């Protein structure tokens, strides 16, 4: 299983400096990591994207949603590698950090290979953006898995987990979509 999350570093989704924001989202250790880092803004959104990417696997695994970022405990192993714990479950993350965005991919084991992409999204409505992103993913899957593009379709489960169908039968393939500000991304 796989999950991914992108944060546009120049698109202020949230003002993390507002009172009580940090305590709702980050453990004391994570806050210490943020405040001791050279670029607090970047480290904060790096940890956030690690939590989000791991959460996306957790929902696929257990079919249960919750909103409690602090229950996902982050550890940075190196500049781009991380470890996330949700209760007794461990997730591995690899992040790409540029001056514009942080993109994190979470996996269940430390060494897996995947296909992933980050691209500039059009500034458009959520609906249009989501459509463009799904089409980009399907095009990529069609190419790498040699499946006819017109037979591929993404449907969401009742709790909102996207699943891939080919000619109406579900494919046993984990993938993840993400969007923030000027960027979209996917992984499978």
């Amino acid at each position: 299983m796989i999950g991914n999350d992108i944060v546009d570093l120049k698109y202020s989704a949230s003002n993390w400096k507002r009172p009580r924001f940090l305590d709702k989202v980050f453990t004391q250790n994570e806050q210490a990591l943020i405040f001791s880092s050279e670029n607090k803004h970047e480290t904060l959104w790096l940890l956030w994207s690690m939590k989000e990417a791991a959460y996306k696997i957790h929902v696929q695994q257990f079919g249960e949603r919750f909103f409690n970022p602090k229950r996902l405990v982050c550890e940075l192993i190196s500049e781009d590698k991380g470890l996330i714990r949700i209760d007794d479950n461990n997730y591995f993350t690899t992040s790409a950090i540029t001056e514009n965005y942080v993109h994190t991919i979470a996996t269940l084991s430390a060494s897996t290979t995947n296909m992933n992409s980050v691209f500039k999204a059009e500034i458009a409505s959520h609906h249009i953006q989501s459509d463009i992103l799904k089409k980009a993913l399907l095009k990529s899957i069609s190419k790498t898995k040699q499946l006819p593009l017109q037979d591929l379709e993404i449907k969401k489960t009742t709790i909102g987990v996207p699943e891939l169908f080919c000619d109406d039968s579900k494919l046993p393939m984990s993938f993840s979509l993400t969007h923030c500000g000027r960027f979209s991304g996917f992984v499978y």
Partner: protein
Amino acid sequence: MTNDELIAKLKTIVQPYIQDEEAFKNLNEDTDFINDLKINSANLVDVILDVEDEFDIRIENDDMEKMISVKAAMEIVNEKLAAK
């Protein structure tokens, strides 16, 4: 406060963060903040903080955990107001 008044207040709070106008127009108890209103999860933290400010309550993470729908938010706000 009646349920309608509470929903109206929540509707005002979430408005700046929604990304689906249609779902927002039809907001009701069954509306999901993320799946229906397409609020991004960082902004869901803002929603929680705005709810705390509006009702002068504090929501611990164990309660916040369930706050993914209007119905769950209403339950928690009512609980906290009753405990005041």
